[in-house]
């Protein structure tokens, strides 16, 4: 099943948003907590647990703001009734019982909160767009909820929306809770929750970014899916061929490289391919070694395109003699000749560079 095959990319999604973002803002401390499903009560959000970790995180920074707390875990929403009522399907992606939530809480001093909020919204939006082949489909929208009417700036919410073929849907929410959240925490615990910044103490403002792995999956799969119509010459004029491709970002695709072998000295070529594949794996590139089959190269390319594998490395008899391999690109469908000894550095650079778009 395609989705199962794609599952590894959830790994990328889960790690990249949280870890680098924390390092950026708060190089000193990050507390990452993984929550296990707790007995009887099913939680609907990670928010509470994260808030509980705020104080300990603050201690680690010696009371200095800003502090961030990040977490991921399974969450369950709604009762069976609610899900039933939601069955009309206006939220196509949210019909599941549980989702794997990703949550980041940022506690920042109340200086220029609007800018900090902007910053999060912008950097989250950029994160989504970075992996997308249609960045313009990601948009942000803000809404101030009804309760914010009373305290103008203290609470505002923004969503990052993706325009799915069936309409726009929120894929991540970024919420500025103001300092109310922390004040409430203090009220319940009785311990001071104030943080320091430039020698002054404040109630920090809480900004929460929340999304889920399932949503990421849906978005990036939809985003990458592309149909190309190909006119075939020689065939009858009207016959058009539809080729499917997943234009996944190299960091999201399950495999970055597929090794294919061809030629008459198949056994020797394969031995070589196995060796090269192992080397690539050692270098941190995920490689799918095509099992021996009788498919034509063309149909193998096509399958790889459908899998979203960015590069197909082909080895043949010629490789055995000259060391020349071809690297076939998914997006250009062109084959580039290269020497086998350069393969690793080229792939590493190509894949690595796209990280820092």
């Amino acid at each position: 099943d395609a989705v199962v095959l794609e599952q590894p990319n959830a790994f990328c999604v889960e790690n990249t948003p949280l870890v680098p973002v924390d390092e950026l803002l708060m190089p000193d401390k990050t507390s990452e907590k993984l929550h296990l499903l707790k007995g009887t009560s099913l939680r609907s959000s990670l928010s509470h647990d994260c808030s509980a970790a705020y104080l300990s995180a603050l201690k680690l920074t010696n009371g200095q703001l800003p502090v961030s707390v990040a977490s991921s875990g399974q969450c369950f929403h709604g009762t069976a009734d609610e899900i039933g009522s939601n069955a009309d399907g206006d939220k196509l992606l949210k019909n599941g019982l549980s989702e794997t939530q990703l949550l980041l809480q940022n506690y920042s001093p109340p200086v220029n909160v609007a800018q900090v909020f902007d910053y999060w919204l912008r950097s989250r939006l950029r994160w989504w767009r970075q992996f997308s082949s249609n960045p313009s489909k990601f948009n942000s929208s803000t809404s101030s909820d009804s309760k914010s009417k009373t305290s103008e700036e203290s609470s505002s919410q923004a969503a990052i929306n993706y325009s799915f073929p069936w309409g726009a849907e929120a894929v991540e929410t970024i919420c500025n809770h103001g300092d109310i959240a922390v004040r409430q925490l203090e009220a319940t615990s009785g311990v001071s929750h104030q943080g320091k910044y430039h020698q002054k103490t404040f109630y920090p403002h809480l900004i929460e970014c929340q999304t889920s792995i399932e949503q990421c999956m849906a978005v990036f799969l939809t985003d990458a899916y592309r149909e190309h119509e190909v006119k075939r010459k020689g065939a009858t004029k009207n016959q058009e061929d539809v080729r499917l491709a997943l234009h996944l970002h190299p960091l999201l695709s399950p495999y970055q490289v597929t090794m294919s072998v061809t030629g008459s000295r198949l056994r020797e070529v394969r031995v070589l391919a196995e060796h090269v594949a192992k080397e690539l794996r050692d270098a941190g590139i995920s490689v799918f070694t095509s099992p021996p089959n009788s498919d034509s190269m063309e149909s193998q390319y096509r399958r790889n395109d459908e899998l979203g594998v960015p590069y197909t490395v082909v080895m043949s008899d010629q490789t055995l003699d000259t060391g020349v391999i071809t690297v076939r690109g998914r997006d250009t469908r062109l084959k580039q000749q290269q020497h086998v000894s350069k393969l690793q550095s080229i792939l590493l650079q190509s894949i690595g560079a796209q990280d820092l778009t």
Partner: protein
Amino acid sequence: MISRPHLWRKLSASNSLTWCQRCWLRSCLHPHQQRFNTLNIQMLADVLHKQVFPSQNVPHTVHQPPLSVSSSVEKEDKDLPNIQAHLQKFDLLKGKSQSIPDVDLNLPKLFGQSVDEHFRHIASEQIRDYKAMAESIAKSSPPPFPKEWACQKGWTKYKEDGSSQSVPFPDDDVVVFDIECLMQEGNFPTMATALSPNHWYSWTADCVLQDKLRWAAEPQLSDLIPMETKRNSTALASKKRLIIGHNVGFDRSFVKEQYLIQGSKTRFLDTMSMHIAVCGLTSFQRILYQSSIKESSRKEVREHSERQKLFNMAASEEWKKVSGMNNLNAVYQLHCKGEPLKKETRDVFIKGTMADVRNDFQNLMTYCANDVLATHAVFAKLWPEFLERFPHPVTLGGMLEMGTAYLPVDSRWPRYIEQANATYDECQRELRKLLVSLADEACHLVDDDAYKDDLWLWDLDWTVASFKMNRSPSSRPKAAVSDSESIGRANAKMDEEENLDLLAFLESEEEREERRQIVERVYATASRLPKNPTFMAGYPAWYRELCPRLHEDDWYPGPSNISTQCRVTPKLMRLTWDGYPLHFDSAFGWGYLVPSVQEPTELELELDRQDTEEEVAESKFPVKAFMAFMKKSKPELFQGKQTTGTKDKKGSAADSAHYLGTHFDRQAIEPQEAILHWDASKPGPKKKKSNPNLGDGPHDIGLPGCLFYGIPHKDGSKKRVGNPLAKDYLHRVEDGTLRAETGDHANRALLLSKLCSYWKNNQMRIEGQMVSWMKKAELPKYVTKQQDFEEYGQYGAIVPRIAVAGTITRRAVEPTWLTASNAYPDRIGSELKAMVHTPPGYHFVGADVDSQELWIAAILGDAHFKKIHGCTALGWMTLQGNKADKTDLHSKTAELAKVSRDHAKVLNYGRIYGAGQAFAEQLLMQFNPSTAPHQARTTARDMFKKTKGERNREGQWTGGSESFMFNALEKIANSEKPTTPVLGCRISKALEPRYVLDDFLTSRVNWVVQSSAVDYLHLMLVSMRWLIDTYNIQARFCISIHDEVRYLVTSPDRYRTALALHITNLLTRAIFAERLGMADLPQSVAFFSAVDVDTCLRKEVNLDCRTPSNPHGLAQGYSTPQGEALNIHEVIKRTGGKLTKAKKT
């Protein structure tokens, strides 16, 4: 029941009634005594009229004609049919005459017997002290330079006895002033000198004396130059001061007190503005002037005079002797006949470091003082001349007031810049991504050579290089192995990880050995790699060009060098112009391909031939695909051809050229006036221009079945277009002329480049704005105690570097704010103006003068004709026309020229500013690219005939709706001493007929209206200053952008300021009418349609200014609330019609 005006019209149309009878009738019909003039235009209410035109013996009841004008009554009666005939000719006079509620308001008592006297009085009061100061320094002779400049922090005063003394600021009232700042240091002043009538002063920045670590990129108040306060103090003295400088707006932005919200009484007088007003050059003249200096002028002068003879036109070169460029050096040489100033020293400030300044301190200070000396000399010369040419005190008063512009900003400002930059980067990134994917997709065409059938891509270089290896060395392979590092590495790795290798369990020893051998052998071939291996082997050449080489610094995989600058990009985007595919020709630049005209049968023959002869055809152009594409995109072409084609083979080429919308025949040239000079002043490039082959087409460029037409260049048809994605063509995307034929990607890319273009062009200027942030202690208590004051917020200001009279029309010039764009949803960063935000406890109060220049032009025409408001068609349309009836000017023109109302606006203003018919033609074709040139010509001619009219033998314009207006303008423009009708300001010497004879008439006609508009502005500023001072309103002038003024006001005083603005408009309009001999004013123009009370600068108070960089709008994104727009009635309701401060209850 018949409505009253209707009844009146019915009665009056009969023409059987006398004027008196009609007046009586009207007064009966309008029991509220609304006053109407003979043309049924509502005039000022009686109560206001009495106050505004006190000397006019206004009748109490309208039906008693005033005695003083009884003679004119007869005249009016006699003229009336005349006027009516004129108006009826243009289908006017029949609209509903709406009456608007009268305004009952007690104005402040005016001084003197007329509005003019009043303005003279208040302006003289305002400028009296400053004028005296200017007088005293103009007459003074400067003391000699001090022997040595003191190298100490802050200001030093040099006394007559040679001693010097450290002072907090220059203690004379008036100084000539100049600052220098080191470019490298950014917006931090380095040194300054000042000259009072008796003393020299010098100022040295702290950082010249000691290295200081700077934390902020923006200067703080303490880094700036104090002119009236002590160090670390912001207590302003109430003393008036005058600072004179050349382009003093720049120097002013380094003066500490100018950043204080309270506003100081110091005024700035700019010698550059004075020079421009007295004898400045138009931009066109400036170019002529410079080219005449650069080129060896003898030949050029000779040619020019030859041309003048040829055209039998009176012109003169004298203007070049009485005028000059605007920089201090040129101005000094012109007015003082001085030696050129030594400007080499200046390089230290441009390129040097602080150390250079320290080393050369005495010299640099002297250089700075020399500039001051020159400025003083220029001022002494210009001052009497300025007063003579601009005798009305309002002019000086207005200019001084303009020089106090002030833009408060807060934390929104840095946030805005950050947002705009981030959005811009984001868009650029996305744009690149899109272009890369377009390039990638184009690669698919390599399959089966499909590119050969692609209309855009067929002529790219598709050659593919193959990967080459060196010959295998015949020597022992073992040697190669030891050479190769990678082999060593491979072996090592294999040995090392052998045990962990899953494969190891499955394969035998032999197999493992075999594997090792294979790998070794293959890797050994690395030695055969050439030094520079073929780059991107397997990819077409054009694609490889877009890919950076691996070793380049900003390497990024794929064709990442692609940008909208690339020649290949428009092709990849598959752009079309008006439905025709774009093509690049090395001789003609970018253009598009249009099927050439052929008999249908012939076409088919051609197609058939192409079918069979495709392989042998000399040209690779895919004619077949082209025809197929054209059939799809322009089916009408092929239908049309059948009818035209059969008629006349020879004629059909021309016919269909029209039909195809080929509007690119030789376009009518610029107005003759200009061309004359261009040809004269540019003998060099002339030849090149006249090359007949470089027109717009059609050209046969050797592609079968089609002709090439160039894309029209904005500077005229003769230029070749280098990049259709450049800024000037992006608006073509908007109207759909330029389109991407295939794919959302390409259209999105077009959109993105449009989004980016504004920020790309303005980023530097906007980021370069000098903001000075104030500490809490530097803000007035009033601000810091406001509820919405944020302890950790940022509060600061920008002092815009305005040249108060930067053009010969005396309009103010400043590159960022006065030309700032309004907010558009497709312009990153265009929310600029809305980012200027009031500090807590303040409001902006301001207004746009409703169709200011149109009204000025119209009233000049009215005065010229019969001295009745609305007696010319233009006047009537301006006052009485409305959109709903389509009787306003723009709707009328829209109807005439068959364009949209907005386009008609452009046409109208162009015409009123003196642009000719040729210009209108060009505009028409730009608005609708499918207009044929002859059609545009007819329309333009028609429009001109009906508006401007035609010249009769006496050189007067006749027959058009605007003929009277143009006659009035030309009468002024052609008079011996052109002066503005209201304030009597003389035109720049460079345009005076005695120096230019008949030359530059367009500029002079234009000057009449524009310069009067400046008079209008000055009158408003003076009137506002008077009301602010008289009624103790806490307000200061903020900025004026063209016909718009803004004041920064403490919130409690905002409605009083709004009332003051409304009254100011009334008085200003009144003085115009009075000076033009029409002591009355139509009610519709008496007050602003709305005064905006707002907290930021924006076009309308309710705009949210959503742009790509402000996606959430002002209200949500920046929590800027909506403002109020108040008409006079609403203001009266809020203030009770009183300017005095309401007593607290």
